[in-house]
């Protein structure tokens, strides 16, 4: 009876350790995802700047279209970053 009780206690300890490790892995991947989205948002912002520069160097009737798409892209990236931040942090 005493041996069984000891085994159960050991098992429980192992489970708690497993849960902690798993939670750690989940937290790590989520923070990694958040970091990647942050870097990507910076890239989207730089892309907007780049489109402005390109339009300045060569202005065409399609300039507005590219500006619009770059802005949509930035909005998408920022939305992901904000929602991910709200959920993860």
């Amino acid at each position, binding site marked *: 009876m005493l041996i069984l009780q000891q085994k159960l206690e050991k098992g429980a300890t192992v489970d708690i350790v497993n849960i902690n490790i798993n*939670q750690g892995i*989940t937290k790590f991947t989520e923070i990694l995802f958040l970091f990647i989205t942050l870097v990507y948002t910076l890239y989207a912002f730089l892309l907007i700047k780049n489109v402005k520069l390109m339009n300045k160097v*060569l202005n065409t009737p399609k300039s507005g279209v590219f500006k619009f798409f770059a802005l949509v892209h930035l909005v998408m*990236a920022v939305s*992901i970053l904000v*929602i991910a931040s709200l959920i993860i942090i």
Partner: protein
Amino acid sequence: MSLSSLAPNPKKVTYEGKDRDESIVYIVRSSIITLIPATILTLTIIIASFFFRSFLQNFGSETGILVRPQILPLVHFFLITLAFGVYLHSLLNWYFNVLVLSNKKILDIDFVGLSYKNVSETTIEHVEDVTSTVSGLWGLLFNIGNINVQTAGEQREFEFYNVDDPSKVRDLIADFAAKIRKRGNRGYS
């Protein structure tokens, strides 16, 4: 948007430093075929995003999850945004990397990545030799090649890659330069 490499007399197109009495006669772009790798990559990312979502959903159901279920749609949407970004970047590079031929100058506008811009120009009178090269399987299959414009100025040559029908473009630039030289300083009209 013209799908051809060569856009004659483009309307409402200007470039930085364009003179008032200057008009753009041709704009030369790389072939639209050069966008195929980016298109394939974009489609691959979109398709992979569905598999990746399914993988994350099923991964670690016994050993522990990688991300919580509420993060999964965000990861999926992020991959779709990434695909969109990849394609937009390639499209911008294709559209804005051009060779501009005006009645006064020839300009080579290059954008590489997000931080590199290079604009070279010379007067049409300085154009000395125009060469076209078609090489490789893609070049032979789709009649795509490079144009090399040699000039007398300090900027010795302009290179432009993956142009549709390079022989036609070469001929056009050479004829145009010869025409301008013949007319002297009066320019093209």
